[in-house]
């Protein structure tokens, strides 16, 4: 059904709540439209407060974490270390200052960022407190669990082979 026909049958309000229609512009019109959009965005950005910018950064981090721990298979690009490093970068902080603020040694922070140590249980809680509850501890715990799942899947075949000798019995049905 064409847009014009829809407009005869429905109010503009109803259509705006159900559609975004394709609009064709000539190359010249598109260029002008893009420039005007850039100007509009520039004006909006000039009014953007620091806390608004920080909210955008934290939301981006939160959504990436959600996508990582909700995915069926762990994405190798992401990990607890990746998200911790990103959090510090998004806050525009130095590692030493950040380590101080969450009450840990800079060496431990460096080990966590460089995949050299599993995070102690208190770390997600301290990160939740540091982020003023913006990134809940559960998010960090779920990321850590996803990392473990990824590591297990990577070594599963070798682990099965190694553990086989210890399992001497089992059930006969298979789901």
């Amino acid at each position, binding site marked *: *059904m064409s*847009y014009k026909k829809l*407009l005869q*049958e*429905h109010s*503009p*309000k*109803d*259509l*705006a*709540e*159900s*559609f*975004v*229609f*394709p*609009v064709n*512009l000539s190359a010249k*019109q598109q260029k*002008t*439209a893009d*420039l*005007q*959009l*850039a*100007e*509009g*965005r520039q004006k*909006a*950005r000039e009014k*953007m407060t620091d806390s*608004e*910018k*920080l*909210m*955008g*950064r934290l*939301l*981006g*981090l939160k*959504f*990436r974490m959600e*996508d990582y721990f909700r995915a069926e298979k762990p994405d190798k690009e992401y990990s607890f270390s990746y998200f911790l490093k990103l959090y510090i970068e*998004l806050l525009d902080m130095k590692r030493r200052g950040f380590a101080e603020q969450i009450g840990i040694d800079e060496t431990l922070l460096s080990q966590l960022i460089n995949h050299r140590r599993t995070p102690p249980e208190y770390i997600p809680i301290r990160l939740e407190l540091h982020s003023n509850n913006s990134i809940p501890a559960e998010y960090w715990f779920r990321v850590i669990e996803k990392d473990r799942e990824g590591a297990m899947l990577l070594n599963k075949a070798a682990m099965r082979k190694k553990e086989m000798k210890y399992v001497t019995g089992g059930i006969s049905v298979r789901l």
Partner: protein
Amino acid sequence: MAIMEVATGRKLTAAVSPLEGADFKQITKKRYFFDWKKEKGSADLFKLTLQGESDILGLLALIDFPREFRMQIHLLCVSSETHGKTKKYDGIAGTLIAFGGRTAISKYFEQACISLLPKTELRAHYKSKYGMMDGGPQLFLEGARLHAIIKKYLP
């Protein structure tokens, strides 16, 4: 994310996910208004379903403009029985627009923007319903307004 069943006022859990090849079997022009197959390859396509169900209630085509930290809502529609005065569900289009915003923020953080090029008659309604701002012929959302629509439709 939640949409509302109009008849009962019940909130139902919805899911937005990438459109897959097999989905095109159920996407007819009669029910989804546009030729969605034509959009394959030129836009990222997404579908909205109720959680755990396969029936598609809404479709979204997003075009990424990485140099501008922007995602354009190129095309959006709800299925034929879910629009107009007799619609079965409410909030499908808002959820899809908010999903576009979430995708942009996940990629571009505080610089994220979503935009659309509206039909003239619908312009004022996108602005009042979704808080969109003028950017010449196009409308856009970024910053606090973008965060607000995500909070509203993807709580």
